[in-house]
């Protein structure tokens, strides 16, 4: 690395000496001057990173010198040393000298070193900027220069052609055509268009056949582009053509090449090499793009053609270069785009403000629309929400700089989210963006939930079965003994009634145990059977009496008992769920009404069960969701969010439906409708 040069101008040798002491050991070269003329001379001859000038120089002020430096060496950062802080001096220094820093005398060593370092940084930045600028505009300038050169030729020729106006006009229009050609070139976006333009441009040479363009694309594949009738066809070249950089007329190797490529003889050929800077360096003799023509030009027309094409060669080459670069860039980014769009999981790149930088097609809620929605936040697009999704690990991932996992909900779907922090710019020292990958786990989660639920039921069933059987033994004794006693005690007195009560209670216990065993039975050994909803309700009630105990219950069962075809233990679970929900909806003691009726409509007869509570009611915005799996408003651990979804599935399985009507603050009514199925008399 070259050392940065610093010029220090001061007429006081002591000051220069202390500056030298200060810079000792620093990676800078100090050049000093005591007078303005010497300093000017140095500025003209050498490149300085920083120029420090004292305001009080003899014969010229520091500001004057810095103004001179600004003109002659604009990249150097300028520092003015001054003893006084007069406003007028400062103003002048800023306006005329574009001073980077002021340093007042006497200076603080530490501060001065910081200022010098900053000035060098500033200088480097300027150099980088200007070289970048140069690079960016170099191609444009080349075209501009060409254009302006041509314009100049136009003017010059116009002057010299005063003698012959016709000749002048011909030349003028010739040059204008050239200018127009260059402009046309700049509007092209594909190699096909380029080939079309070349054909059009050469229309006047009747003896030329359609052009063939051979070039090498970014991955080094040789490609040829040619006319097939009016269509332009592009295909991989069968072999490499001669890439020598001079124009060739009727050369054997070109004839052989074209004959091999197209499978027919070529008699006379023209090969016009195009230099491609993006592929071959300037110095190289190779021209990886070549324009071929088959022709029947008479000898006297070859020269005019060559001069015609020569004038257009450089702009053609530049245009081809630009087009191929653009095509390559486009295809590369298209490859990535289709890669992402091909992935079925939503993927998005977002910044620290949750703004979308990129997203694939499956990220937006309507994958068919394909519209890209940037400058919006990811949560807005994904869920329509104005705040980040609950459970999204983006923030955590950005903070920690490590991949994080989370889980979010999008409507009724559940997604596992992985956030991978990334740096979009290699110069960033920490993560600036996050790649979010979403995996829909709704189905597997539901399955898992159901598995747990059915495992729970199985465990409860086993337990209930054991307890029921254990109870059966003493119950046998109680009931049987009561029956024996009933036969033995005298009719008179209250004893007989009492014993009868015992017998009845034992009988009831026996029923409860039977129901419990039925209820907890696994699905495996159950069958659909004809049973009335009334019977289902009667069988279920003993099991939820505890929950209902705080509330008043009103039971009204239909007089007739039409049968429905169901698996009784599943329907019992439905009734159990509905009544249990009703109880939980009432924080204060309320009324729970259970009633059954029979309805008839066009679809036949329905057996209907209503479970009505006077609880808090269900808000309108969530009533749509209550049958969704895992939707729960209960405290964690209180509910699985599966009760209603399972109930709905069960009811639908038996051809019925489950409906809900609710008013906030008044209560909720669930209605179960099942088709009546009468036993057929054989």
């Amino acid at each position, binding site marked *: 690395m070259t050392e940065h040069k610093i010029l220090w101008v001061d007429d006081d040798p002591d000051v220069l000496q202390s500056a030298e002491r200060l810079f000792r050991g620093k990676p800078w070269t100090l050049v000093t001057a005591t007078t303005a003329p010497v300093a000017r001379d140095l500025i003209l001859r050498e490149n300085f990173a920083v120029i420090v000038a004292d305001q009080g120089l003899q014969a010229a002020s520091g500001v004057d010198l810095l103004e001179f430096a600004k003109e002659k060496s604009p990249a150097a950062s300028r520092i003015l040393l001054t003893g006084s802080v007069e406003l007028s001096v400062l103003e002048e220094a800023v306006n005329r000298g574009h001073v980077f820093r002021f340093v007042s005398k006497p200076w603080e060593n530490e501060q001065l070193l910081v200022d010098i370092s900053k000035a060098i940084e500033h200088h480097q930045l300027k150099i980088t900027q200007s070289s970048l600028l140069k690079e960016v505009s170099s191609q444009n300038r080349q075209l501009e220069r060409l254009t302006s050169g041509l314009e100049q030729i136009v003017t010059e020729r116009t002057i010299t052609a005063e003698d012959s106006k016709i000749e002048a006009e011909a030349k003028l229009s010739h040059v204008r055509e050239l200018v127009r050609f260059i402009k046309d070139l700049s509007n092209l976006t594909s190699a096909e268009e380029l080939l079309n333009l070349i054909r059009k441009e050469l229309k006047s040479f009747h003896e030329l056949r359609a052009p063939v363009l051979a070039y090498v694309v970014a991955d080094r594949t040789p490609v040829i582009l040619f006319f097939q009738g009016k269509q332009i066809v592009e295909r991989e070249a069968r072999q490499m053509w001669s890439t020598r950089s001079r124009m060739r007329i009727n050369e054997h190797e070109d004839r052989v090449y074209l004959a091999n490529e197209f499978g027919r003889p070529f008699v006379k050929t023209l090969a016009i090499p195009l230099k491609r800077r993006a592929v071959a360096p300037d110095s190289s003799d190779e021209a990886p793009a070549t324009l071929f023509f088959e022709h029947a030009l008479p000898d006297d027309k070859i020269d005019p053609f060559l001069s015609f094409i020569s004038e257009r060669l450089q702009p053609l080459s530049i245009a081809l270069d630009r087009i191929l670069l653009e095509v390559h860039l486009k295809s590369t980014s298209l490859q990535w785009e289709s890669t992402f769009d091909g992935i079925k999981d939503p993927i998005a790149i977002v910044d620290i403000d949750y703004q979308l930088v990129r997203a694939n097609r499956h990220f937006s809620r309507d994958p068919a629309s394909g519209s890209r929605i940037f400058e919006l936040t990811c949560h807005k697009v994904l869920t329509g929400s104005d705040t980040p999704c609950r459970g999204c690990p983006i923030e955590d991932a950005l903070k920690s700089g490590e991949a994080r996992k989370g889980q979010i909900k999008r409507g009724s779907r559940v997604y596992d989210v992985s956030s991978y922090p990334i740096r979009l710019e290699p110069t960033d020292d920490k993560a600036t963006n996050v790649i979010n990958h979403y995996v829909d786990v709704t189905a597997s989660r539901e399955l898992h939930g159901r598995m747990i639920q059915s495992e729970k039921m199985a465990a409860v069933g086993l337990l209930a079965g054991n307890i029921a*059987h*254990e109870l*059966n*033994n*003493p*119950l*046998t*004794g*109680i*009931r*049987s*003994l009561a*029956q*024996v006693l009933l*036969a*033995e005690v005298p009719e008179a007195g209250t004893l007989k009634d009492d014993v009868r009560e015992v017998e009845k209670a*034992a009988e009831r216990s*026996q029923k409860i145990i039977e129901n419990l065993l039925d209820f907890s039975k696994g699905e495996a050994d159950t069958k659909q059977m004809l049973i009335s909803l009334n019977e289902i309700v009667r069988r279920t009630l003993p099991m939820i009496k505890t929950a209902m105990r705080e509330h008043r219950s009103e039971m009204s069962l239909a007089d007739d008992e039409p049968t429905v075809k169901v698996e009784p233990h599943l329907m019992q679970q439905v009734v159990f769920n509905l009544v249990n929900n009703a109880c939980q909806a009432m924080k204060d003691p309320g009324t729970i009404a259970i009633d059954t009726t029979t309805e008839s409509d066009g679809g036949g007869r329905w057996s209907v069960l209503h479970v009505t509570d006077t609880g808090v009611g269900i808000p309108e915005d969530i009533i749509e969701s209550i049958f969704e799996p895992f939707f729960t408003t209960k405290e964690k651990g209180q509910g699985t969010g599966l009760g209603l979804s399972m109930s709905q599935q069960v009811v639908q399985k038996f051809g019925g439906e489950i409906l809900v009507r609710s008013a906030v603050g008044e209560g909720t009514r669930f209605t179960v409708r099942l088709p009546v199925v009468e036993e057929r008399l054989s």
Partner: protein
Amino acid sequence: MKILIVDDEPLVRKSLGRAFKARGHEVSEAVDGTEGLARWLESTPDIVFLDVLMPGLSGPELLKEVLPRLRDWKGRVIMMSAYSGEHNVTTAQQMGADLFVPKPFDDIFALVSKAEELFGRR
């Protein structure tokens, strides 16, 4: 007729016992399978009420033990169980019993009649 009740549940023994005694039958009881075996061998009952699950010797084990020893015995065995899913008439008969009754009984006197009927058909 002579009744033997083998059951570890005292109330079952008591209720069955009283129901049969009330009908004038002779009743003896055993609190488990081991005692059941001894009583059975010494008293040669006409009807044996046999519970399935008992401490010590279970009902089926007791049957296996006792039947080969009493080849000329003409009595009948009624097997009882609270685990109704476990056994039924068929499995009970395979083990050498004549009847299977799930617990709890709906009507103890109906059971007594059944036993008398069984004894009559002997």
